[in-house]
């Protein structure tokens, strides 16, 4: 973008010198001469356009009639198959579409071929004239003067104070948008916990059958919820935190950090299914690479490295649920998660 791109101002002609801009201009030749359309000169063409417009309006009438056929004949209430519903829906659309397009295209065709196509000109007006502005200033001054608000600062200041305070109660009115009735401290504490607890069985989602350790083969994956979740007060809220993915892999492939040695049962591991990015369920498990993938934003977690983030926008690893087997051979939780599940938040720490 240097000077070389437009040459010397004297000969290239691409750079105008400041002083010739204003004067050296081509004069405005005015509106181009009007060219008459076919219908303006030939009455037969005009008549033809007239018939075309009438035909379009007739198409609209047919479209409306077709709508009624679709509504009453194709739509038998309460006994339609899905395929019939689709046909009816398409027919309603076609009927309405032609009813409307007939009118619309007809009117526009009428306007373009038969109404005058001379362009007219009108002048713009000043948005605010100086005289109006002066009048307005005078009026505002009079209003301020007559109200006395400038001369009586006591009134003005107390009014400002009153108006500033008055809306604040309206803000507090919204405090009970939170319908739990709990304090902020209690709610933040609740966010740290799920319904998992010592001895709660892992059950399949959605059937609710408990899972034996021997049922879990290497390479398999189960969608798991805690036993009894449907008996809780709000199952969806519990599920949104407690849902777990259960997988089994060769223990030799797992890197286990200190303190988590006994959180798995012979390579059977349970991790929170709620993505630590913004909370989508992590539904995809790639057996071959042992990667878990969130279908919403593609955060990828490596099961061999305790579900550490290996790709995508998630900021921390999936929380692991410590599990063991009970006396009957069923998988149970050792405890709740040791950290909050789901997306990070300010109080997470």
């Amino acid at each position, binding site marked *: 973008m240097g000077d070389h791109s437009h040459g010397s101002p004297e000969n290239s002609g691409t750079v105008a010198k400041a002083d010739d801009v204003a004067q050296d201009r081509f004069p405005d*030749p005015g509106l181009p001469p009007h060219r008459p359309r076919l219908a303006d000169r030939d009455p037969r063409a005009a008549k033809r356009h007239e018939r075309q417009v009438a035909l379009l309006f007739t198409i609209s009438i047919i479209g409306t009639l077709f709508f009624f056929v679709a509504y009453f004949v194709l739509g038998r209430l309460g006994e339609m198959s899905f395929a019939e519903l689709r046909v009816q829906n398409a027919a309603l*659309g076609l009927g309405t579409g032609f009813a409307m397009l007939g009118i619309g295209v007809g009117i526009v065709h009428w306007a373009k071929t038969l109404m005058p196509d001379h362009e007219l000109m009108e002048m713009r007006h000043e*948005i605010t004239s100086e005289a109006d502005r002066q009048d307005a200033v005078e009026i505002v001054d009079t209003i301020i003067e007559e109200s006395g608000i400038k001369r009586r600062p006591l009134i003005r200041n107390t009014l400002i104070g009153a108006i500033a305070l008055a809306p604040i109660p309206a803000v507090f009115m919204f405090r009970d948008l939170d*319908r739990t009735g709990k304090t902020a401290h209690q709610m933040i504490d609740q966010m740290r916990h799920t319904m998992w607890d010592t001895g709660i069985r892992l059950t399949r*989602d959605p059937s609710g059958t408990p899972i034996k350790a021997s049922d879990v083969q290497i390479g398999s994956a189960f969608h798991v919820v805690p036993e009894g979740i449907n008996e809780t007060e709000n199952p969806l*809220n519990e*599920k949104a935190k407690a849902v777990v993915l259960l997988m089994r892999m060769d223990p030799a492939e797992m890197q286990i950090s200190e303190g988590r040695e006994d959180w798995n049962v012979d390579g059977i591991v349970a991790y929170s299914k709620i993505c630590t990015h*913004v909370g989508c369920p992590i539904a995809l498990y790639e057996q071959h690479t042992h990667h878990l993938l969130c*279908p919403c*934003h593609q955060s990828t977690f490596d099961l061999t490295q305790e579900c550490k983030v290996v790709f995508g926008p998630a900021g921390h690893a999936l929380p692991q649920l410590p599990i063991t087997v009970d006396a009957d051979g069923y998988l149970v939780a050792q405890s709740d998660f040791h950290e909050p599940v789901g997306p990070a938040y300010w109080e997470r720490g």
Partner: protein
Amino acid sequence: MSASNEYTPATTTGRIANFVDSRVGASGIVKEFGRKIFPDHWSFMFGEVAMYTFVLLLLSGTFLTFFFDPSMAHVVYEGSYVPMKGLGMSTAMASTMDISFDVRGGLFMRQVHHWSALLFVASLSVHMLRVFFTGAFRRPRELNWVVGGVLLIMGMAAGFTGYSLPDDLLSGNGLRIIDGVMKALPIVGTYLSMFFFGGEFPGEHVIQRLYSLHIMIVPAVIILLIVIHLFMVVTHKHTQYPGPGRTNDNVVGFPVGPVYAAKAGGFFFIVFGIVALIAGLFQINPIWNYGPYDPSPVSAGTQPDWYIGFVDGALRLMPGVLGNFSFEWNIPFPWGTNTLVLSVLLPALVPAGAIFMVMFAWPWIERWVTKDNREHHLLDRPRNAPFRTAMGMAGVTLYSVMWAAASSDLIATHFHVSLNDVTYWLRTLFFLGPIFAFWLTRRICLSLQRKDREIVLHGREAGIIQMSPEGAFTEKHEEVDVYKRYLLTNFVDRQYIPAEPDAAGHVSGSEKRRAMISKFFFEDRVAPVTPSELEAAHAAHGHHEVEGNKADSIEK
């Protein structure tokens, strides 16, 4: 006033008209608007599409409210869609199923509503682009530009609140993402989420709340803004494209009655007809395929409605962890450790915030840089404002990269490429794409301006090959007519304005910065051809070439 002076109409229609007129002053309105001139151009129709699709939204939406029940109470579905019989779901979902399967034409109305919503935001966006690229936002229309921008945001808000109402699996996951983004906000985030959902996600309240917003507050604000917008359009009168006979002081076009009213009114029916055809023939949001909301399942290839795509795409592009560096910062405070979730905050707020801030501020930025505070009623051809067109394209590119990122998984599966590579490429394009687009667009604009100069100076190629007596072949050039020449030469020629000292003779820092931007924008420019240049060109090339049929072309 004596009775004899009063006008007595002869016909019944006349009497009714006179009755109304004498009570509401209709004559004045007719006199003011009946023959008001509106310029005509295809690109002015995007705003009309937006308004008409909004009317369709009101009509179809009102129909839907008669049948929809926004409650989140748990019910067992007993409607006529067999595969879902006996399934537990919220009342909102069940009533949406009933609208689709047990209200005749209900599915059609749902699809009209959804398609209109998609078109509404699309036409608003394209209308904003038209206004931007033609410079229609300049004085005196800056405030209307801002109103338009707020309308775009409200359109997206209306779309999002409505999208979530059926409480199906897809929209429920959308709400889950909103919950995650809200919680990422420092200090207030957790509280906001609790207030919004009435407790923990998903709770039993959010659909009702979204419903109130969707059918009352948001449409009311949109209607108010549309009224303000149209009021200002009437006050300012419409802009017009440059051309012979069109000046900054006049309006050239068709009168409201009959031509403009017929075209604009007819266009409403055309928009309605097209939306009806789309709604009849193309399925949208088949909630019966998704099923009711459940926090555990999710289908692969999930996508938001198109206008939320750019934010969703930005969320996907952001790396959460780079090597061992996490964008979730745990900050120790005296009262404990708090988490700053930059991996969500940065992509959710910064790109969208930057795009909208620059968009809102642009009229003032341009005025500051160009020092041009005149009223502009004549539009710019985009090529004649290379700096603005290039800035606009840089913004469009940034938006498009984010938008494409919202489909990164589908791009990967459809083109059989690695998802990770798609993401890496899009991350690169996020930073380099806008720069490249700016450079390329400016070069294209400058080239088009040079082409315009070429056409004015040397005429257009007539396609007639002449052989000179010496045997040389040349193509005859025909001079353009005066109307075309005026169009090609009559534009505002913006120039680099160096830093100027203020009254005290001091060149302020902000003035220096302005001059830097001015230099960056206007260093390369192509000036319009002047009559003296044309004269010189004629002299240089010999008159015979350019005046071939001067009689037809120059004569007025």
